[in-house]
């Protein structure tokens, strides 16, 4: 092209789109939050930070040298980076992928802007962490490390590059030269850093003296030494990783980069929409907000990303409900199917979490003290205000239950224009979770009584506590479903879980405070009935 280069196209695009997007974002933030509010928050953040620094006083006896711990932690991070790399650290969105990724443009030129943004984020995180470290070290460890900020920023950039190189090594097939080069570069550079870190750790833990040269040029020297030389190794490593990254994107995209970009950008869009909608303060199930954070959809996208079974065909299926089955049965089947189709390990983890939540509910119902009683100290009456600190214990158990139940409610179901009433929806969605949790009461009781050691009391004595736990389970699950559907906030978020837990703990809290603990169980059942019939 006369007078132009291929870089002109990317520059032309970024000049227009980035500026316009930034302007829109600025305007939107101004309207949704308000810039004066943000400035006010920043002002106080700075004031608090300065006040915090000023209150720092040196310890009477300094903490032991952190060199060994830091080297061990950094080695683990580096090893994890070198062992990982199955998915890309950054992606192109759909438009860039079709308009630039398939065009005769050098991949590095196309990716450079996004890579720079990612680098800026990593560098800022490194600078901040390093700055905090520099401020803390004189007071905690008795040494100065004023180069920690640039050193950590450089190391964060190196880590980012190494992640990309590992990905490039994985993503190219067979004997592709780009695969070999990316693998070689990442392993050589990462290997050198790892050997240096391990050497420092070994010297430190064997109480040997770290040679002065190594102390100054080891990767984490910036955190413990106060010399510009500490930047030499991170700088050298960054120079090499940058050259390697550019070389890995000289001519071809890694073959899986395109499809992975499509999936990851879709997931990113889901998250971004959710954040934007929440920031704008738009609630309500009608927005289908809960659907945006549908865990099943996210899981399917991840399966597609890693080309795993489950993305195109279900792993396993439950029998279909009969065609004349009532609506609640269809909804319960949908929820149960979503649970049943999870990978086995994840399903096992979900069940374990549910079992622990039920144990917590039983403990909160007073079962544990019941086991611990002797004939001289009679079993307290069944009420959900047992061990774990009375009402606070009930609240914690309910929160744990809500956390567990959030993974059991299945996909969000916006009734919208469908001929389904809220009661049917709640019952259908909550039934599998309630059934599972109540069924788990038996093994949970066995578990808890076996922990007691002195032999389990007869079933008749345990029954009030089991009933108390069952009512707590029902209340938490139903409240979580109702609030999540009404507010539009996904059940996996902390807000609906907190609301459900607080509501469930309310009888124990209030009646306990007025010395009417014996009424807790019956009040819980009444509240359960009330929540069940609320038409939201």
């Amino acid at each position: 092209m006369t007078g132009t280069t291929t870089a002109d196209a990317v520059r032309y695009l970024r000049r227009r789109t980035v500026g316009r997007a930034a302007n829109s974002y600025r305007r939107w933030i101004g309207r949704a939050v308000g810039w004066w509010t943000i400035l006010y928050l920043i002002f106080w953040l700075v004031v608090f930070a300065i006040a915090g620094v000023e209150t720092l006083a040196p310890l009477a006896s300094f903490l032991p040298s952190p060199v060994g711990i830091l080297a061990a932690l950094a080695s683990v991070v580096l090893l994890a980076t070198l062992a990982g790399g199955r998915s890309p650290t950054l992606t192109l969105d759909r438009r860039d992928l079709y308009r630039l990724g398939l065009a005769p443009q050098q991949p590095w030129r196309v990716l450079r802007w996004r890579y720079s943004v990612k680098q800026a984020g990593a560098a800022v995180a490194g600078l901040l962490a390093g700055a905090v470290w520099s401020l803390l070290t004189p007071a905690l460890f008795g040494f100065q490390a004023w180069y920690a900020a640039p050193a950590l920023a450089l190391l964060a950039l190196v880590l980012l590059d190494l992640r990309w190189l590992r990905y490039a090594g994985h993503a190219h097939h067979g004997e592709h030269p780009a695969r070999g080069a990316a693998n070689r570069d990442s392993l050589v550079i990462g290997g050198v850093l790892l050997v240096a870190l391990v050497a420092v750790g070994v010297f430190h833990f064997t109480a040997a003296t770290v040679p002065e040269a190594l102390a100054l040029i080891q990767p984490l020297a910036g955190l413990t030494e106060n010399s510009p030389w500490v930047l030499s190794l991170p700088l050298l490593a960054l120079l090499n990783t940058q050259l390697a990254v550019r070389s890995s994107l000289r001519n071809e995209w890694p073959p899986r980069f395109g499809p992975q970009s499509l999936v990851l950008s879709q997931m990113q869009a889901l998250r971004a929409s959710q954040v934007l909608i929440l920031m704008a303060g738009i609630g309500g199930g009608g927005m289908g907000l809960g659907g945006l954070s549908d865990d099943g959809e996210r899981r399917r996208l991840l399966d597609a990303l890693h080309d795993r079974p489950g993305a195109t065909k279900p792993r396993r299926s439950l029998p279909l409900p009969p065609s004349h089955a009532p609506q609640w049965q269809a909804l319960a089947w949908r929820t149960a199917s979503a649970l049943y189709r999870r990978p086995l390990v994840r399903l096992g983890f979900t069940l374990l979490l549910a079992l622990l939540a039920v144990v917590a509910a039983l403990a909160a119902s007073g079962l544990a003290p019941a086991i611990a009683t002797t004939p001289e100290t009679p079993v307290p009456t069944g009420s959900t205000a047992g061990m774990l600190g009375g009402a606070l214990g009930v609240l914690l158990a309910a929160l744990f239950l809500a956390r567990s139940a959030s993974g059991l409610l299945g996909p969000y179901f916006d009734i919208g224009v469908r001929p389904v009433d809220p009661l049917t929806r709640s019952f259908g969605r909550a039934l599998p979770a309630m059934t599972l949790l109540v069924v788990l009461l038996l093994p949970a009781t066995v578990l808890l009584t076996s922990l007691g050691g002195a032999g389990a009391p007869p079933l008749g004595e345990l029954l009030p506590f089991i009933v108390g736990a069952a009512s707590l389970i029902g209340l938490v699950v139903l409240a979580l479903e109702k609030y999540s559907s009404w507010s539009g906030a996904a059940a996996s978020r902390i807000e609906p879980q907190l609301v459900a837990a607080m509501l469930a703990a309310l009888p124990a809290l209030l009646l306990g405070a007025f010395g009417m603990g014996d009424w807790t169980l019956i009040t819980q059942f009444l509240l359960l009935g009330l929540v069940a019939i609320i038409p939201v």
Partner: protein
Amino acid sequence: MSANSSRQQASGSGHAKEAPPIQTEELRVSLGGVNIVEDVTFVLKRGELALLTGPNGAGKSTLLRALVGLLPSRGEIALFGRPNGGMSARERFVFVPDEPALYEDLTLREHARFNALVYSEPDADERAIAWLEELGLGEKLDEFPGTHSRGMRQKLSLGLALALERPLTLLDEPFNGLDVEAQEQLADALRARASAGGAVLLTGHQKELADRLKPRHLELRNGLLHG
């Protein structure tokens, strides 16, 4: 239509001039353990206009995406005798996806300029504008495409592709969302492109397409290619 009469250029070396635009050997694409396309072997020659049909889910879009390197595949794919993911192959084709991939913050006119810059074809800017005017978007050139209908966005996407002088054009369901007049214009343009020596491969399942384009007919059924 001035843009319609654009000549097709086969840029590149002599090797690229001799090799067919598309050549696949036992091409297989599987997603999540399911084979979508199986053992597809075919050649698309210069000057050929091929219509790839098949029922929904037959794998038409998957095959097209694999050809341009957007999906990992097994077997051999060569575009003009070169590996499909490389720069030398990307210099020779233009791909139109089924859903228009447009920048919401670039106007139609800016899209045309950007398109010309990306493909290093200065004249493609004017040709794209001519195409967009011909397709009825002349008064929308300084608007963002975000508020436009599906059909208008599709016209923009097609106008940008047709403005480029690439020896191979791949289009995924290009007639979807177009009004009758635009369908006629597109069919004429694709036929002209093929008769000028370019190769065109498009997907679709309308029977009238075959009558209108008189293409070489390829049918994908259960992942296997017939025709």
